[in-house]
């Protein structure tokens, strides 16, 4: 059973992360001035920092974290594989390849919206390729194999772009983007990512029951009245649109989708549906705190978010697995 304190705790952490993310940055603004800036008075520079720099960054951290956490939980349930994460079906790599193409061909410099748009296109193309490879199969193994093929192909495309980069700066630009970050994201990015993420969340929202039934395998799930084909389309579309939209704006941020469901699962009845929404909240909290850490650690270059989630995530994950002594 889900303990009664889980949701209050997650909501508290969510609010704390949101407020801290608004309050922390390279410009130290004391609390009273923050409040007056937030309520329309105060210094116009501080107001701009708060509303045009920190607010979109905070919204993106929470929304991207939520879709990564939720999609990880959905995929682990659907593929019945505790090692699944949003990148396992090649969607993240597909989106990254689209974005890298925008950087490589200089389209990103021509118009800033082209990078995320091509990223989403990359995610959708990778989904179509996955569907062509699996052709109506219901076997999780076939989806994982096809996903590895699609992801590896997109990864090879990214490597090719790096290989053929005309100069070190172009390669550096691509590498930096690939590390994943929320730095300098504006409301333009929010407007692009948020609708995609919202569609992704909506598509994933109706899948809980089907995922529960699938813990008995495909035949039993079908015998319990689950339309497996429809569930498959919902999940794959949610992945391409939701995660594709998120990755297109932030770059590749790993480990959140893998770790969060594992952190949540022991505090639920371990059924896939019980893990879904707490994982969305947990992902939002984790990514927002990681993004706060990025801003607080004093380094000459700002640390990239994807680097921090990896460094934070692996020890947390290992400690957790050792405590649980099992993989699910």
């Amino acid at each position, binding site marked *: 059973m889900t303990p009664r304190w889980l949701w209050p705790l997650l909501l508290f952490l969510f609010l704390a992360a949101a407020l801290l993310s608004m309050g922390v940055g390279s410009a130290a603004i004391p609390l009273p001035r923050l409040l007056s800036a937030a309520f329309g008075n105060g210094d116009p520079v501080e107001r701009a920092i708060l509303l045009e720099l920190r607010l979109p960054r905070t919204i993106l951290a929470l929304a991207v974290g939520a879709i990564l956490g939720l999609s990880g939980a959905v995929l682990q349930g659907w593929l*019945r594989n505790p090692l699944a994460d949003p990148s396992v079906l090649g969607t993240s790599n597909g989106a990254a390849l689209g974005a890298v193409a925008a950087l490589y061909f200089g389209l990103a410099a021509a118009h800033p919206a082209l990078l995320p748009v091509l990223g989403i296109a990359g995610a959708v193309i990778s989904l179509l390729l996955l569907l062509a490879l699996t052709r109506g199969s219901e076997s999780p193994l076939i989806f994982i194999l096809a996903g590895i093929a699609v992801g590896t192909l997109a990864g090879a495309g990214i490597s090719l772009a790096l290989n053929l980069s005309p100069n070190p700066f172009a390669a550096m630009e691509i590498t930096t983007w690939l590390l994943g970050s929320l730095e300098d994201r504006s409301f333009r990015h929010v407007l692009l990512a948020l609708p995609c993420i919202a569609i992704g969340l909506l598509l994933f929202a109706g899948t809980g*029951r089907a995922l*529960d*039934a*699938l*813990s*008995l*395998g495909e*035949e*039993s799930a*079908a*015998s*319990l*009245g*689950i*339309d497996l084909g429809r569930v498959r389309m919902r999940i794959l579309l949610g992945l391409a649109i939701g995660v594709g939209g998120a990755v297109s704006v932030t770059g590749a941020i790993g480990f959140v989708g893998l770790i969060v469901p594992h952190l949540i699962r022991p505090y639920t*009845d*371990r*059924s*896939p549906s019980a893990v879904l929404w707490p994982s969305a909240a947990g992902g939002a909290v984790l990514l927002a705190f990681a993004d706060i850490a990025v801003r607080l650690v004093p380094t000459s270059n700002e640390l990239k978010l994807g680097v921090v989630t990896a460094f934070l995530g692996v020890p947390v994950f290992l400690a957790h697995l050792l405590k649980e002594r099992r993989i*699910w």
Partner: protein
Amino acid sequence: MVALAAEHVGVRLGGRDVVRDVSMRLSAGTLVGVLGPNGAGKSSLMKALAGLLPHSGRVLLDGVDVAGLARSETARKLAYLPQGQTLHWPLAVERLVGLGRLPHLAPLSAIGPADRAAIERALQRADVAHLAGRAATELSGGERARVMLARALAVEAPALLVDEPLANLDPAHQIAGMELLRAEADAGVLVLAALHDLPLAYRHCDHILLLHEGQLAAEGPAETALTPETLARVYGISASFGSPGERLLIPRERIR
């Protein structure tokens, strides 16, 4: 009262006809044993009847073609337990059995008092109520088989299709399993069980479907479907039978 009928049902898998031209008519309150050697098409026939495999011919549930019914409607009328049911997450027994209520839940609604009562009944009937809080992945083979059966019972469908529910059980649990299916049939459910154990099927089943190479080799009450001739033809074995009314069958030796 439910009625299940097959009209010239055939199943083709991997270019091979695994079920050929099976026609039959079964009614509520019957315990039907689906028998036949390995590869005779028992599982494929059960899946086709449950609407889980593409098939030729028609499967009629209460006179309506199952192919035309919505999945959710079939799911409420017909519970199915596959052979060697797997479980991918360590759910508690009660939660697992509760999955059997999925066909009855309206969209966005949670499990209600009526569902909880059905789960409780299923746990009681399968004699696993004392396991309700345990993780289903940590049970013994016998407990696990009964829990999976309880999941199918929780659907409370008028037709119950179970594929080798007694595999890997000790004799006491096998007999208990047959008695459980018997009780379901006596309560008015149409029970189809794919079985390998001839003595058990002979003793407990009202009706036998004997499959041989995908075709119905014999059908009827146990005494008329399982005879020295049909056993020799289908299984290639000889058997001893008890006195009439004793319902005793003992397989003896291979004769081909």
